[in-house]
């Protein structure tokens, strides 16, 4: 016999196999998911969920697709949360402290409660990456927030109304575009191609008969 546990979806009780995730348990219970389900493998943040284990005080946040059900779990999904993304022109802005102040001034109202970090489904130090953003240390903010899936669980818990994942995206774009060194070999190759250096060579390889291509392929040298 399969081991079963009792879980409560939006307060209603269902008995489900103990080895399911919250997401597959909802489907087992008969739900056809439309919202709150995207990649199903922990990458898109669509399945933000809040739960409490019966009899315990603590509220927990998680990704429904990555979390196994437990006995007495009271589950509510958060398929949408009104995080606030500010718009900007990436070519106009500069990686200075000023830009955070302009676009996300509320980060300076952080009271240091650490609720965001506790809520993070990816185990990131969210409060820390917000602190880096405040100080204009974008590269550090980018690193610390890199694994963010944008589920918004942190934002649901923040008394200062901060949209953490949006701050992270901005810091990463600034880092990727302006702070990390430009790639010389990439620039060079793009120019060579634009200049037509490979046009003839590529045409030649395209024209080769299959037998010759097979020979070339099977005997090509492979970089160590």
């Amino acid at each position: 016999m399969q081991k079963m546990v009792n879980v409560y979806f939006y307060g209603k009780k269902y008995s489900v196999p103990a080895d399911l995730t919250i997401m597959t348990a909802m489907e087992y219970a008969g739900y056809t998911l439309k919202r709150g389900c995207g990649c199903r493998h922990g990458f898109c943040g669509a399945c933000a969920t809040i739960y409490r284990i019966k009899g315990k005080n603590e509220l927990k946040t998680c990704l429904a697709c990555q979390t196994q059900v437990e006995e007495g779990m009271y589950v509510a999904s958060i398929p949408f949360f009104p995080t606030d993304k500010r718009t900007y022109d990436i070519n106009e802005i500069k990686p200075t402290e000023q830009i955070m102040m302009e676009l996300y001034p509320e980060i300076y109202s952080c009271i240091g409660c650490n609720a965001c970090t506790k809520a993070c489904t990816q185990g990131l130090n969210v409060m820390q990456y917000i602190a880096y953003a405040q100080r204009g240390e974008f590269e550090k903010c980018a690193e610390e927030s890199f694994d963010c899936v944008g589920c918004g669980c942190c934002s649901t818990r923040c008394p200062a109304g901060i949209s953490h994942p949006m701050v992270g995206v901005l810091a990463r774009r600034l880092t990727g575009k302006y702070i990390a060194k430009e790639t010389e070999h990439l620039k060079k190759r793009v120019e060579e191609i634009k200049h037509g250096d490979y046009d003839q060579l590529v045409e030649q390889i395209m024209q080769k008969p299959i037998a010759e291509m097979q020979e070339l392929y099977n005997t090509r040298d492979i970089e160590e």
Partner: protein
Amino acid sequence: MYTENMQASVKKVEATRAERLGMEPRRMTAEEKDTLLQKFHPDYRKEGFAEIKIGPNKGEKAPAELSHLLHSNSRLLGVDLDLNKIDYDTDVLIIGGGGAGASAAIEANEAGADVMIVTKLRIGDANTMMAEGGIQAADKENDSPMQHYLDAFGGGHFAARPELLKRLVMEAPDAIKWLNELGVMFDKKEDGEMVTTHGGGTSRKRMHACKDYSGAEIMRTLRDEVINRKIPVVEFTSAVELIKDDKGQAAGAILLNMETGDYMVARAKTVIIATGGAGRLHYQHFPTSNHYGATADGLVLGYRAGAPLLYQDTIQYHPTGVAYPSQIFGALVTEKVRSLGAMLVNVDGVAFMHPLETRDVSAASIIRECSERGKGVTTPLGSGIWLDTPMIEQLHGEGTIEARIPAMLRMYLNYDIDMRKEPILIYPTLHYQNGGLEISGDGFTKAIDNLLVAGEAVGGIHGRNRLMGNSLLDIIVFGRNAGKAAAKKAKETELGSMTLEHVVKYAQELKAAAIESEDVSPMLLPNYARHER
């Protein structure tokens, strides 16, 4: 936590590790690969396929589940729809908010066109978001577009369309540059040099990555840019049928609000299908690495409107899907784990193949090991093969796994498996649709001259197998290109009066071929809800 039989086998893996660290398993010869594929690759299992009975590819085979959808009915038959009541009117309509759709939208917007995206779930709830390993481009000194061409052409069994493959490799460096300039954080060294690795089937290290969140980093940047540009994105809205006009052009799509069930009419001068893959059709009952909305909708819509398919009978099974624990069965274990040096090892601790053969060869070899040779490790849902991850830390130093493949580490740690210390169990998973709608070099379908396709919904770029890192590349190269081409074409397009005549005609053809189906298509979402008493 591993079961007892698994733990016993782990001991054997550990016992042979030191010896294996110093050796490189032999690569298979071309003949060995051929025999292996024919005997063990799912594409060669006749029962998995069915003939397409009507339409441009009549008489050819397709996976049985896809054939069934092509033979099923339009939702709109018998629905009273007023095509003159237009809900959205635009130059360029993009169906699908993944990487291809978002790239197309940005370029069409850049070209000055009115453009909108409709997408089934949210923008970015897509296969693009899940790509871990990386993106190819020949941008280093020892590499060239020709070398990239050769690898991709050979890896795809010499079946890629040369004009498409040429575009892929020649525009690759510019695609990376474009992404980098949008702010994508590629793994770089201090001096700006890209950190690049091998992928299965590459002859040069040209895999660029953003840790193991490569697709996520690309997708969230593209999404951010789409929003910055104020491009309208209509979420939870699926295209269920293309609209044509009386001149045979594409003229928009009928949309379905996934939440209310209401239909809407979108009129457009050019339409781009960017609906991605088909993993959720679970061909031959395989689990899948794909997102929830990967149900081949674009192929069905396009086919019904008269656009032919190409290589619809070839599917990529990724050799390393999760075999255990069951909760994440089928999820992807990125190929980068093997690029970094982890070997494939059987129940006895023997490295039975080179870890970097192409995907189809690797998948077939793992299936053989678990079936004919009986050297798999038994799991609750079947069997699997070890991927010896602790080797990575021994080869490249402690901390490599956390730095380079954090998503993998996190996924397994959720289930108390520490891949730094213990190997992990894998089995092939349904991963990628090699085939799709046929396009010309500039992205247009051959049958309808203002209908474009980009991304995984295209067939022919890769041939009959795709190398890791060439798909993220194709969605950027062909997505951007489709956006530009669609914007330009929209300026010259004069629409006639709109019609769904083709849908009615298709239904008549089905009837004439005596095909009856209870089901409607496109499928939109897989049916996972259990309704048993």
